[in-house]
């Protein structure tokens, strides 16, 4: 049993948690990080490919190298850290929170803080979530689990793979499995466009001659003990073209069908969840529906680049400090998704400063416009040379571009994507 008293608790020691904690500590507040695994770094630890840090550090790093930079920062700041420790419950007591965590070393930790940053990351969607018919043999892995087995444990999940879904982890695993001597026969994507970054399609599939089947689904899985084959069926206008089904033999199926923010603990604290992102609803300061509980990184919405996670989390840390110092945010107004936008984060904006928005498109298009309207009146328009759902869009609305005189309590800012000339 151990009791801890601090101003802030950060749950999760991935890139989000570390960046937020560093910022909070630099601004002079006391903070503790609790991480369930035995090391800091989160998902970065298993991403041994490079492509991290181009924006944040202006150099190309591997995942572990990127994590190392932040681990150095938090260690220099002497931030208290508990690894191998899992947070299970949060109690909201109004002006303070009591958090319960457990580890084999300390037993129960009771942590009393004024504010919390949720930084628990996300988990992978699995077969049940996509409802693939057929038998249930072994050999069906989420791509992240396969990545872990290969990169950290040095184990081969199989030798003949088919990859379901073209998310980034799946693409990276297609290359990784090829490198370690497995055969990757197909990447099957239900949408007519890839779910991953374009650079990954080029570097991970094209360079290895791995076929990408867009608008195709895995319609059946065969095999009693171990996967033996899958049926792949093309889609036309959303309908399965059953007669064009073909069978591919394989012993392994890797699923890369999306990530879902991990909000079990948040929900226990009463945090409201957004149906689009599966992450918390947050205001302009990234504060959730529970006063004093903030969220950033993949637990808030799934990011494609770690650089964005760090940026968002650093800001989140600063907002937490504002909260602790009782610096009130100026009035907040609603932000909502307009045409062709899946979601916008945060869900509120403020008139007091610049506002940074992260959003995702629902469409693939060259030459589009991002359009901001305030209560129906267009206030900003920005050219986008190319948009697609897999590439997050960022936009900063400058304070001086906000028509302050038009704002009233009910004001709504709507962000849309429209084709050129629309």
């Amino acid at each position, binding site marked *: 049993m151990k009791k801890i008293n601090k101003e802030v608790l950060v749950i999760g020691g991935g890139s989000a948690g570390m960046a937020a904690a560093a910022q909070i500590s630099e601004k002079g507040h006391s903070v503790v990080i609790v991480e369930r695994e035995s090391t800091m770094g989160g998902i970065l630890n298993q991403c041994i490919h490079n492509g991290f840090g181009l924006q944040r550090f202006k150099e190309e790093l591997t995942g572990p190298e990127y994590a190392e930079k932040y681990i150095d920062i938090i260690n220099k700041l002497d931030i208290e850290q508990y690894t191998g420790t899992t947070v299970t419950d949060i109690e909201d007591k109004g002006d303070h929170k009591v958090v319960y965590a457990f580890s084999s070393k300390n037993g129960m930790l009771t942590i009393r803080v004024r504010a919390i940053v949720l930084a628990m990351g996300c988990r992978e969607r699995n077969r049940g979530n996509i409802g693939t018919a057929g038998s249930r043999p072994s050999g069906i892995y989420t791509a992240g689990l396969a990545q872990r087995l290969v990169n950290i444990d040095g184990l*081969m999940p199989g030798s003949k793979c088919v990859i379901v879904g073209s998310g980034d982890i799946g693409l990276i695993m297609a290359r990784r499995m090829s490198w370690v001597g497995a055969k990757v026969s197909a990447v099957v994507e239900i949408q007519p466009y890839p779910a991953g970054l374009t650079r990954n399609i080029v570097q991970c599939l094209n360079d290895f001659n791995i076929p990408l089947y867009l608008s195709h689904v895995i319609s059946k899985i065969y095999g009693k003990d171990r996967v033996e084959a899958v049926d792949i069926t093309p889609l036309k206008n959303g309908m399965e073209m059953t007669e064009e089904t073909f069978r591919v033999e394989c012993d392994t199926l890797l699923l890369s069908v999306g990530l879902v923010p991990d909000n079990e603990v948040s929900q226990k604290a009463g945090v409201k969840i957004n149906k689009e992102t599966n992450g918390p609803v947050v205001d302009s300061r990234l504060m959730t529906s529970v006063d004093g509980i903030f969220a950033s990184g993949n637990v808030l919405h799934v990011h494609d680049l770690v650089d964005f996670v760090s940026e968002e989390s650093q800001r989140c840390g600063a907002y937490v400090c504002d909260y602790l110092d009782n610096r009130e945010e100026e009035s907040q107004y609603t932000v909502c998704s307009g045409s062709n936008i899946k979601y916008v984060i945060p869900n509120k904006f403020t008139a007091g400063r610049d506002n940074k928005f992260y959003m995702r498109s629902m469409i693939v298009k060259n030459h589009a416009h991002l359009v901001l309207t305030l209560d129906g009146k267009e206030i900003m328009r920005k050219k986008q040379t190319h948009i697609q759902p897999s590439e997050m869009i960022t936009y900063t609305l400058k304070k001086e571009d906000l028509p302050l005189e038009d704002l009233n309590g009910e004001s709504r800012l709507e962000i849309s994507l429209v084709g050129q000339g629309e």
Partner: protein
Amino acid sequence: MSVKYDVMVIGAGVTGAAIARKLSSYNLKTVIVEKECDISFGVSKANSGIIHGGFHHDSSTLKSRLEVKGNLLFDQLKEELHFPFSRCGIVVAAFNNDEMRSVEKLYENGVSNKAIGIELCNHERLLSLEPKLNPDVIGGLYVPGGGIIEPYRFVFSLMESAKKNGCELYTDFKVIRGVQKDDYYEISSDDGRMIKSKWVINAAGLFCDEVSKAFRAEQYEIKARKGEEFLLDRNATAYTSKVVFPAPSEKSKGMLVIPTVEGTTMVGPTADMVDDKEDCSTSKENFLKIFSSARRLVPVVSERDIITSFTGLRPSIEGEDFYISPSEKIPRFIQVAGIQSPGLTASPAIADYVKDLLKKQGLQLIEKSDYDPNIEKVPRFRNSSHEEIDNLIKENPAYGEIICRCESISEAEVIAAIRQGHTTLDGIKFYTRAMMGRCQGGFCTYKIMKIISRETGIPMDEITKRGGSSWLVNKKVGDYPVGTEI
């Protein structure tokens, strides 16, 4: 093996395990054999987990008599064996007058079966009992004595208790032949092992017909009726407080909404005859069927909440009643076949019934003086208070390592499963619930593999999902010719 057993039970599903436990309370040398690498890997792992309320079948059938008797035994069994069980109650919902009439028929069954507390309800009463019901419901039935259990955990507990009292278990023992000798049988497995036993109980589920044939006993056929089910997330709003049935059809009890005892929601099952007794696949058509019927009962059921699906095969036999009887062709051989629903509910009563048959047939039953009906309770992280967990960790630090984050399963529970002989991923899954939650093992599979390997010495590439060729990893990175980096 030169030992001669008094009784051999073939098949370690719920039926076989319940019988084995019963027999372990007498001075007998008992053995149970199972063809799979672990117990409860047959029908008993894939069902709805309902302790039925004694109203679906009329009292002329053997299964309805054993169902009602079995139901009443669960409170004491839970005390002794600590498996998750709750008498949450059952409602049957009718949406028109025809359905209401078939519900009234169920009511009459229930009354003649002496189902405790059974009542007919109007629209208002039924909705107040189960507020998540579709408000179009016109009325129905309420059966407070119905309940839910975790079926595999029940089988594991029965077996643990049987073993504790001296029953032996052989897994990976597929019976292919039974040869009658003087006062015993020589029973052989497909890998050449042989066991001698005086009495044999055929509880082989879907394969009772083959076992019967292997002993040259009665010829009959067990056909498989397939049931597909879907499991919804713990946070799904569809979680009801009671099991919700539709009015039944001629063929089956219909597709239902089940609040599992561990907090997830289950919808299904379908009922279709299939030829292949190992066909546990799911299909798209049935997915659509299940969700539309479930939503008719409870409108908030949503596909969005699916975490997994599975299939169970009901061992159906001509006449559709249980076939529990001494063989008329060979001596000292008891058939326990056609144990489809409500087999789980009836299992403890089946065990008593079989014991009585053995006695009538001349087997001498003397109670063991040192019989202990209780097994040790393995505390679960998830069901313990903060202070209890703190104490558990002090005694056993492995309680502080949370392995499965979705279901909050600690390393101590995984180790307990391994020590009970469950060394495959599925065995550990059914014992602990690790890998059963919303991420379906995405995070913890590799951790569990490592614990199995560490605790048992089995190399990683020999660990399986459920025995046979269900391997998980085949080689080490570097064992293959490595491609050139581009």
